Structure formats: structure tokens, C-alpha cells
């Protein structure tokens, strides 16, 4: 392990930013946001950024391809730009796990090359969660907030930051930082981990269980009467989808501009009424079906297709962002109740 004194962290960040674009969490008016590093910026102390690191690999809007149309002739212009090296500093355990979930979608055949390029060019430095929030329930999905995954894992102790290279590209980056780090820090990392574990045990959602869900549970939950009450207040907005680190549905849209046609990929939401609407009809006519789709996908369909891994990481963003305070924890508890007798 390598370490650096707390007061030297900006020197280290400066060093990283020499070779790649670096994004660090910075407090903004609407909460912490990953911001491109510049001298003078201060690291946020917030537990989570408002938006997850998904944005870096699967941006909300992305120009897929351009076309020039003249008469009957079409020209295809591939002007992609996702080949730039970048580093994200301070990703939390939940967000890092979300990348594994997105990988299984975008990197499975046929590979989404836009996403794959960004994955190849991005390095994630994760940070153990010193202060988990009451809305955190990552342990439900087997995530250890005291030991996140990532290319490099970072532990913030009282006096020093400790770094551990995990992947090949993480180790390489860490080696390049030898001038601004020194050996050691194992003790600090242990102390931090122990402290975090103590707190995890006190979290109000620590007992939320997902084990009633998972592979092949479609029949069991699809027609559950509880969906009606759970979905009745849902506004059908896309907030949960957009703040969710694992939601990845998208739309493809063309825009006519003065200089030709631009084809974009943009986030979409299964909560929206037009998501599945066709000229032939609407297979999910009410909010109940749309609401059910989102949770069934995370709790049943995704695990069925992905070795039982759930499509939720327990980051709690939907818990704090939903305008009507409906969320996956309430869904899991309510649907799970029926079984407890």
C-alpha cells in the first residue's frame, strides 16, 4: 500500500491530472458533483455525489453518429470522441459495483463500443465510506462499504490517505505517483475499515434482505396485489431512473441541424408512458405496469440473466430523490412481507 499525508492530497491530485482528465467530488449548490480537477478546488466531504459515476461511461446524451443527406444520397460520419484518458477520484463502493452491473449489459456481445472505449480509458479510484448515510443499504447486495472495488482503493484516515492498487491499470497509475506517496498505511486502512464496519452495524436499513428475490421469481411477484398500492402515488417521472447508477435504458433520436443530421443516444426511462408505446398499441398501459417493470427488472429479470446478481447496489439515491418517497426498499419490504407468515 501507498500513503500520503492529508495535507498533500492536492499535490497528488495535481500529479494525476497531469496525465489524464481528473474528476473529483466537489460541493456545488445542489450537492456534491464530480468536477474536473483544477487547482484550488476542494474535495467534498459528502458521502455521495448527487449523480453516480454512470454518467462518465454512459452519458445522458451522446452523439452516436452524424449523417449528411443530399438528395437521395446519405453519408455516414463517425465522429466519436470517447477515447480520452480520465480518472475518477472518490467513487463509493456502491457506484463501483454498479459498473460491474453495467458491464454485463454493455460489454456482453455485441459489445457497445462507446461504453467499452470509455471503460478502457477510465480509471476508478474508489474511496471507502467513512460515513455511510441512513439511506445506505449496499450490504443487502453483498457490497462492503469498508472495502470497495475499483482500480485503486483509497482509505481516508485521520492524518493520511492510503492507496491500494487493485487492477493492472490501477497499479500502474499508483506507481506513477510514487514521488508523491510513500510505502505503508496498512494500519490506517485497517482502522478505517473497522470504524466503518461498526457504523454499518448501526445503519437503520442494515436488515433489508433481497434473498426472496432473484432468479426465476417472475411468477411469484409479477401478479402480486401489492404493486397496486406501491405504484399508486408514482408520478411517472424519471428521477429514480436518472439518479440510479444501474439504470441503463436508452433511446436513440435524430436531430436535424443546419449541418446535417445528428443521431443521439440518450437516457430513457421505463417509467415513462411512451417507453413501450407503438403504433400497434401499448403493452404497459398504466403506471402500475411501468413501475413494476423497473423493480422486477432489478430484482428478478436482471438476476435471472446475470448469475443471480441484483440490478441494485443500495446506494440510496432513489430513497432521497423520489418526489413521493417511493423506492426499492419499500418495494422489497412490502413484497417480501407476504412470505413472512
Amino acid at each position, binding site marked *: 500500500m501507498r500513503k500520503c499525508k492529508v495535507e498533500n492530497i492536492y499535490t497528488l491530485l495535481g500529479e494525476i491530472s497531469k496525465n489524464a482528465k481528473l474528476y473529483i467530488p466537489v460541493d456545488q449548490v*445542489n450537492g456534491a458533483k464530480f468536477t474536473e480537477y483544477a487547482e484550488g478546488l476542494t474535495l467534498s466531504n459528502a458521502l455521495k455525489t448527487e449523480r453516480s459515476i454512470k454518467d462518465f461511461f454512459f452519458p445522458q446524451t451522446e452523439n452516436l453518429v452524424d449523417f449528411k443527406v443530399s438528395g437521395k444520397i446519405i453519408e455516414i460520419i463517425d465522429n466519436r470522441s470517447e477515447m480520452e484518458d480520465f480518472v475518477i477520484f472518490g467513487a463509493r463502493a456502491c457506484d463501483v459495483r454498479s459498473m460491474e452491473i453495467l458491464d454485463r449489459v454493455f460489454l456482453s456481445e455485441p459489445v457497445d463500443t462507446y461504453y467499452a472505449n470509455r471503460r478502457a480509458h477510465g480509471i476508478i479510484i474508489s474511496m471507502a465510506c467513512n*460515513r455511510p448515510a441512513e439511506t445506505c443499504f449496499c450490504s443487502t447486495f453483498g457490497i462492503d462499504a469498508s472495502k470497495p472495488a475499483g482500480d485503486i482503493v483509497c482509505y481516508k484516515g485521520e492524518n493520511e490517505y492510503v492507496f491500494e492498487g487493485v487492477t493492472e491499470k490501477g497499479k500502474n497509475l499508483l506507481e506513477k505517483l510514487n514521488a508523491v506517496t510513500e510505502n505503508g498505511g496498512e494500519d490506517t486502512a485497517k482502522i478505517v475499515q473497522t470504524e466503518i464496519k461498526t457504523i454499518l452495524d448501526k445503519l437503520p436499513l442494515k436488515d433489508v434482505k433481497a434473498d426472496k428475490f432473484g432468479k426465476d421469481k417472475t411468477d411469484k411477484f409479477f401478479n402480486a396485489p401489492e404493486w397496486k398500492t406501491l405504484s399508486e402515488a408514482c*408520478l411517472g417521472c424519471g428521477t429514480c431512473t436518472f439518479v440510479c447508477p444501474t439504470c441503463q435504458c436508452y433511446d436513440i433520436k435524430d436531430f436535424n441541424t443546419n449541418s446535417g443530421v445528428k443521431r443521439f443516444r440518450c437516457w430513457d426511462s421505463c417509467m415513462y408512458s411512451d417507453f413501450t408505446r407503438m403504433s400497434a398499441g401499448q403493452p404497459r398501459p398504466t403506471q402500475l405496469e411501468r413501475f413494476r417493470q423497473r423493480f422486477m427488472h432489478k430484482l428478478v429479470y436482471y438476476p435471472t440473466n446475470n448469475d443471480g446478481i441484483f440490478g441494485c447496489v443500495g446506494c440510496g439515491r432513489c430513497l432521497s430523490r423520489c418526489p413521493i*418517497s417511493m423506492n426499492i426498499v419499500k418495494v422489497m419490504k412490502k413484497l417480501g412481507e407476504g412470505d413472512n407468515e
Partner: protein
Amino acid sequence: MQKITREILIDKAAFLLSTGVVGSVFGWRAGEFDYDVTPALFTDKTDLKNNFVFGDFCGANVSKYLIKATKNAEEKILVFLKPCDTYSFNQLLTEHRFNREKVYVVGIPCEGMADVRKIKEKAGEGILKISSTEDGVIVDTLYNGTISLKKEDILLERCKNCKSKKHVAYDELIGEDGTVLENDRFDEVAALEAMSPEERFNFWQNELSRCIRCNACRDVCPACTCEKCVFDNPESGVENKAAYNSFEEKMFHIIRAFHVAGRCTDCGECSRVCPQHIPLHLLNRKFIKDINQFYGEYQAGEEVGSRAPLVNYTKEDIEPNDAVNKGDK
């Protein structure tokens, strides 16, 4: 903070249910924490007793839900409305959005609702419990011990400038009715007007650049009740989920503000629900201020059936040129 307890409301609801006056109750359902309350329809008395909640986090304006709830209801629905909710209620009736006969309104007093975001800003993450005191809340936290917060520091933005404690619609009131209040709600608008056009553009550019087009503002808005919104219609040509330039978000919000102008009661739900903390209510409030200035004081939802100045010609109406000049300062 709230002077009225959930027990009083549950008793009232249980009574109206058992006497057959109503068949269901629209209110708020308790969540995992003290602050994550969900609007909900109750039909079962035990469910009501166990899960109905009323407190400082019942900010959600439930009027709009009546459109959906009354559609299939055979019996009356009891709804508890705070003073500001009753304005939306009336406005919805003015627009014939649901049948008044299907609703039994119990007006309830409101001391102003709390904003959990503000509480978190002050008390930090790790909120275990929030208890109400007369003039604020006490918060138990994981990391910062127990913290007392004052009411004025934690009120929802819209409650800081409460426009009325008076119920403009009810079948029955709990407690005494309040009055329309003097307030400073147009001060922020005035501050925006005082900016140079460039400053103002930058202000909105910066605020709206955060928009993620989740549509929560529209979906929660009691004035946005079109059965099919033009922005949801792929055939309309304006259904834009991709923000391909920074103009897109502005168009959405400005068009929406125009569409609700004269109908917006200033309930503030748009800003309350925005996950990106954009002060959307300021757009609508600007329209309200202008309408007041150009056509005389008008409060949407004050009376059922009132005609908004924008759809009601009078000879005293301001000449378009004058309006343009006044707006162009």
C-alpha cells in the same frame, strides 16, 4: 411544528369511513424514516391506524391525485387538504378535472412543512430520528449527536413565503381557519428583474443546465393535467429526451411556464420535487407577478370558476405595447 396530530386525523377518517360518508381516505403513508412520507389512498381502517401519518414532512400537495382517485371511486373520497392545497383543488375544479361530488374535503391547518434536504445540510447524513418541537425539530444523527434546528431554517422554500393559511375549499374544517398572509414571495422575482438581461440569462442558464429532464416538475404540477403532454408524444416532434444543445431544457421549462401561466397557484411543488434543486417556481412566480401588475391582483384557485386574466378580455386590459415596454426594463 404541526399543531394537529395524526391521531386527530385518523379519528376523523375512521369516523367518516364507519358512518359511510366516505369510502376511502387520501392522505400520507409513513415510510422507513420520519421524513419519507408517500401520498396514499387508504381503504382499510387497520391500515389507516398503522400507517397513516401526518407531520412536518407531509408537504406533498395531494390535490392532483384526486383526478386519478375519483375516476373509479364509487364512494366519496376523504381528502385532507392544507390551506395551499385547497387553491390547487379549486383550480382543478375550475378546469373540470374531477367531480367535486366525489370528494369530501377536510381542511387541516398547517404550520409550514419541513424540507429534509435542509435538515440534511445542517445535520449531515445519518439521520436516525426527527422529532417535532413547537418551533423546529430535534434530529438524532449517527455522526453529530442530537441537533436542534429552528423552524425558519428548515422550512420548505414555498412555506418560507406562505401565501395563505386560509382554506378556500372544504366540507369541514379541523381547527380554526387562518387568513391570507402578507408575504415577500415576489422579492426573489424582483431581484431577478433587477439583473441585467445578461446576468439574468446567465442565472437561468446555470440553473437550467442542471436539468436532467426527469419531468418530475411537470408530473407533480397540479396545473399540468393534459392527458397526453406534448413532450411525451413522439409524433409531436418536440419530444426531446436528448439535450442536444443547451437550448432544449430552457425550451421545456419556458414552454411549461407559459402553459401554466394564470393557472399556477404558486404551490411550489415543482421546486420541491426537483432532484437537481432548480428553483423552477421562480419562473411561474414571475408570470404571477406580471399578471398582478398588468391586470390587477389575481390568485389562481381562490374561487372555483374564476377566469384568469389571460383568458378574460376586459377594456381595462393593458395594451400589448405597454406590457412589452414594462417588461423590457
